[in-house]
């Protein structure tokens, strides 16, 4: 039935070659135009598993407590303390400029200059207090600076708003998810650019340094780094072109597959825009991948056509035969790539889903460009006698290598290979079991440790007592519960237990602040730093805390406990989250719940959990899809196993490599295995489709394999190497996650290729024993 379909398609396509080319031209023009409008797009919510319980709690209370999307700007004096005119003027400039950057929630900009930054002191008559920077402050008056210095100490903001060494001061802002005027989504990348142009460029000089951190800034830096990808793209195209030329020894044959692959990329980008998607920095590598996959299938095509031409056929006949022969294996291979990528849709994280859509669409497009357009274009090609001569020489050299390689399918060698593979598998299994979930390194994991962003992060966490790595436990209770000693002391005790958990640096909640205020009402005497049992006194204490502190909502039915963490390594997060789950049992009642989680580390905790939960189903789906597709095309259990077993071993080994290289399983590395399996299966399908045809005709395994190598071997080898070289350039990326992906994909491509030409024939030798 399938051959009828291919015959039918062949007739249509090759009778109307000009039409086909015309349609492709028109579509390409349209999609090229569309792809011009493609935008880089990064949104905070795309990076988080929105349906995870933690994130549901986070979204529920986001309105009251802002959330994880904040920006910290530390203004530092390079020499000396902050108490001089130059510094205070600059700090004011930074505060004002940040205030006016679109996307900033203006009610949530805080610094020494904001009116909400107040001090309170105890005097004989009770309390006295005021703004840390008085209204009549003038920065050129040394006495005024001295007063501010005293107020800073009284306000207890050293370590939060002023660095411990008094050399830096912090301006913080919360970001709005939607612009209140236009209702548009916050454009994170423009915002990040504004931070550079309107803050850093304006105000950093030889005396003052500006350090900016926060999710939006990180994404901006990632997007900047992602622009390097264009360079890698260029390098990869150049290398690939050279390799294709060495492979086919013909300029024209080099240009055609490259051209068709670029058409595939254009289509993919255009379609993305048409569907209303942007390109996320995380998925910017996909076009690259699409190009490489396109070339590898294109090479199969030119390889086949060349062989036909050398055998004496015309280019048109060769192209027709190539189309008919390769449409099924090529289509199945590409379809399994597509399905492999689609399995990523099960992961409930926006950017992984986008990656799934982007990649599967790109690969699906290759079916059109490289399995239809390419043979049509090739049918016009004229190959001279010189080419045929060169081709034959090369083929003779290759044959000697294929003879050697065909030994893999000898019984003896096959046993040795399989024993080695089994040993590797056991080792890999053991190692992969220790693979870590989440980010293993300090700072923003997407960026290198030496990047400006991470250096700024290290500076800020070093100089201040705050950390960007915090997790909020949301205490949900009944309205006005903050006046109850019972509730408040439950919060206080829980908080103290959490502070004692390794990995928690410090913590703050309404309860801990209320204790400070209670001491304040008692003449600042530390002996009164307790939660009063008297309800009126408690009311008096908490009434001094404003909702803008982020420690309570309007009726104090929700009170977050903010845990500042030493780092965001997965094991730290797990330990702290487990401790929360354990300790909260002692305090929870129907009306007092300690809910996980908000804050950046809360998001990471949810992401880590989502990623680790997604891992097994994703592997099951991707392998399930590959198995079904192999079964459909070969109709043989043996053939299916021969393709899938090497793939599985390689994916386990890839996980072992992650353990060895300390690459954690994250949003960016999780898709790699699915991508690797999806693409890796191509080699096996190409080799085995020739082999199984021969085997069905009664040929011995060795001969069938040798035949397959002669026909497809060079293209398979070439494909593996080309793909590997292409992705290996990512190792030089300024983005850490691209580097990790590059390493892993290179490994998957090369080792899967080796699996297809070494392990697959060995398995075949066992599965199709010679009939005596």
């Amino acid at each position, binding site marked *: 039935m399938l051959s009828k379909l291919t015959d039918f398609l062949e007739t249509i396509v090759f009778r109307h070659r000009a039409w086909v080319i015309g349609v492709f031209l028109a579509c390409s023009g349209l999609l090229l135009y569309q792809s011009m409008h493609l935008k880089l797009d990064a949104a905070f919510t795309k990076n988080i598993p929105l349906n995870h319980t933690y994130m549901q709690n986070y979204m529920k209370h986001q309105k009251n407590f802002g959330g994880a999307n904040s920006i910290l700007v530390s203004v530092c004096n390079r020499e000396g303390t902050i108490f001089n005119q130059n510094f205070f003027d600059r700090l004011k400039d930074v505060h004002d400029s940040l205030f006016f950057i679109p996307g900033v929630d203006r009610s949530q900009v805080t610094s020494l200059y904001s*009116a*909400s930054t107040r001090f309170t*002191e*105890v*005097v*004989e008559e009770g309390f006295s207090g005021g703004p840390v920077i008085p209204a009549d402050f003038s920065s050129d008056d040394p006495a005024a600076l001295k007063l501010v210095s005293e107020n800073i*100490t009284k306000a207890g903001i*050293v370590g939060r708003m002023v660095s411990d060494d008094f050399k830096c001061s912090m301006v913080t802002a919360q970001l709005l998810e939607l612009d209140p005027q236009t209702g548009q989504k916050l454009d994170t990348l423009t915002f990040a650019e504004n931070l550079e142009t309107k803050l850093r460029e304006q105000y950093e000089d030889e005396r003052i340094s500006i350090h900016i951190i926060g999710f939006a800034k990180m994404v901006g830096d990632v997007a900047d780094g992602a622009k390097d990808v264009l360079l890698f793209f260029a390098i990869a195209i150049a290398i690939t072109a050279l390799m294709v030329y060495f492979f086919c020894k013909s300029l024209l044959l080099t240009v055609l597959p490259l051209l068709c692959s670029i058409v595939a990329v254009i289509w993919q980008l255009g379609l993305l825009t048409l569907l209303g998607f942007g390109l996320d920095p995380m998925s910017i590598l996909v076009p690259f991948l699409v190009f490489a996959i396109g070339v590898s299938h294109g090479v199969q095509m030119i390889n086949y056509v060349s062989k036909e031409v050398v055998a004496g056929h015309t280019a048109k006949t060769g192209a027709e035969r190539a189309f008919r022969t390769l449409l099924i294996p090529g289509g199945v291979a590409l379809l399994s790539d597509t399905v492999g990528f689609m399995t990523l849709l099960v992961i409930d994280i926006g950017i992984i889903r986008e990656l799934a859509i982007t990649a599967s669409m790109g690969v699906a497009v290759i079916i059109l460009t490289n399995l239809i357009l390419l043979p049509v274009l090739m049918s016009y090609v004229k190959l001279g006698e010189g080419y045929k001569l060169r081709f034959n020489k090369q083929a003779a050299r290759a044959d000697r290598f294929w003879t050697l390689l065909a030994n893999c399918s000898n019984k003896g060698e096959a046993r040795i290979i399989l024993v080695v593979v089994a040993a590797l598998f056991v080792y890999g299994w053991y190692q992969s079991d220790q693979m870590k979930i989440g980010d293993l390194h300090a700072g923003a994991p997407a960026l290198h440790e030496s990047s400006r962003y991470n250096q700024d992060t290290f500076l800020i966490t070093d100089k201040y007592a705050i950390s960007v790595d915090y997790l909020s436990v949301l205490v949900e209770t*009944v*309205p*006005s*519960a*903050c*006046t*109850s*000693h*019972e*509730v408040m002391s439950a919060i206080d*005790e829980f908080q*103290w*237990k959490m*502070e*004692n958990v390794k990995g928690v640096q410090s913590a703050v909640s309404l309860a801990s602040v209320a204790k400070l205020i209670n001491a304040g009402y008692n*003449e*600042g*005497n*530390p*002996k*009164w*730093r*307790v939660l*009063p*049992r*008297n*309800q*009126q006194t408690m*009311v008096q204490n*908490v*009434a001094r*805390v*404003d*909702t*803008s502190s982020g420690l*309570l909502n*309007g*009726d*104090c039915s929700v009170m977050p406990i903010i845990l500042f963490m030493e780092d965001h390594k997965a094991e730290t997060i797990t330990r702290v989250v487990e401790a929360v789950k354990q300790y909260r049992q002692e305090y929870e009642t129907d*009306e007092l719940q300690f809910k996980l989680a908000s804050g950046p580390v809360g998001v990471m905790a949810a992401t880590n959990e989502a990623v680790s939960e997604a891992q097994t189903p994703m592997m099951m789906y991707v392998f399930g899809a590959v198995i079904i597709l192999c079964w459909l095309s070969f109709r043989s259990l043996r053939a299916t196993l021969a393709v899938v077993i090497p793939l599985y071993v390689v994916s386990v080994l890839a996980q072992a490599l992650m353990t060895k290289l300390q690459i954690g399983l994250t949003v960016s590395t999780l898709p790699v295995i699915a991508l690797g399996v999806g693409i890796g299966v191509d080699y096996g399908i190409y080799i085995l489709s020739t082999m199984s045809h021969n085997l069905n005709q009664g040929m011995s395994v060795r001969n069938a394999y040798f035949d397959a190598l002669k026909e497809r071997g060079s293209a398979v080898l070439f494909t593996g190497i080309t793909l590997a070289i292409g992705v290996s350039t990512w190792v030089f990326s300024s983005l850490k996650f691209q580097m990790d992906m590059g390493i892993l994909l290179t490994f998957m491509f090369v080792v899967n290729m080796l699996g297809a030409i070494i392990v697959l024939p060995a398995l075949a030798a066992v599965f199709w024993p010679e009939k005596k």
Partner: protein
Amino acid sequence: MKKRLLPLCFALFCPHLFAAEIAPGSAYMAPLASQSLLLDIATSVKGRLISVGERGHILLSDDGEQWRQVEVPTDSSLTAVFTLDNHAWAVGHDAVILYSQDAGQSWQLQHFDAEKQKPLMDVLFFDQQHGIAVGAYGLFYRTRDGGQSWQPEMHPELLDPADVEYLEELRAEDVSLYEQELSAILPHLNRLSPADGKLYLAGEAGLLAVSEDRGQSWVPMEVDYYGSFFDIEQTPSGRLLAAGLRGHLFEYQEDAGWQEIATGTKSSLNSIVVVDEQTTLVVGNNGYLIWLNDGVQTQQTEEEKAVVNAIPYDGRLLAVTETGIKVVSKK
């Protein structure tokens, strides 16, 4: 910015939340106890140090460096500790009094009264049997049996002179109302300090008093300051000092009464520490250290965290602060 005001009546809607069954609880054994808010420190036998603080934390050390937390049958914050041979008493919030007869290793509850909503601030024993404990709103307990039982006492002689007349009138009208009012109007009693057979007391609203009969009766001392005093202490060289709110430090002169010593700080001074024969140290909030020998020298610790008390130990000065035990020294 909108200020939140919490209507008291909210509490009426959920009374079960506020139903109090107050138990003394027990202190949570926390790895960070030695870095938590500590409020007093004392030496016991054989170089044993005992420090007490928030959440019922009691920590012991035998070298001033390694601290270990011990089990305590309360989680109320402890404000003071007193040692006599291998006996020790600690007092604190919820009028809690704890007793140890093994130099702080194990503790029993002698008194607990959370409903009173008044903390004890200091405790002192004259011998193994006789002791007193004082606290907020004139809270005053005495024991004659080593703490087996504690009897409350009222000391109206500690009242602010301005309140005396009003209360006398009240007593004439209604004795029970008088006692109720007295227990609310009496000043906080912050520190007891024995010297030369006398007993001194520092308290709220300019209260400095002296007793010659182990605290049965008190004579307020005249001082020109209406802020609170947190400590009163006589140095080995015979100087009588009182320290209080907002950097106020006074010295008693036989002929001229209490005279102020300028300290150069507006932070409250928590304790007066006798360092050696010549040197006295006054410690305060925001890390203020005021060294007194021939002159006055005011410093601030690097951390600028409240120092509540200190004790000379093994050639060093160990301070209890809001971030735990710290060694302080003169710069």
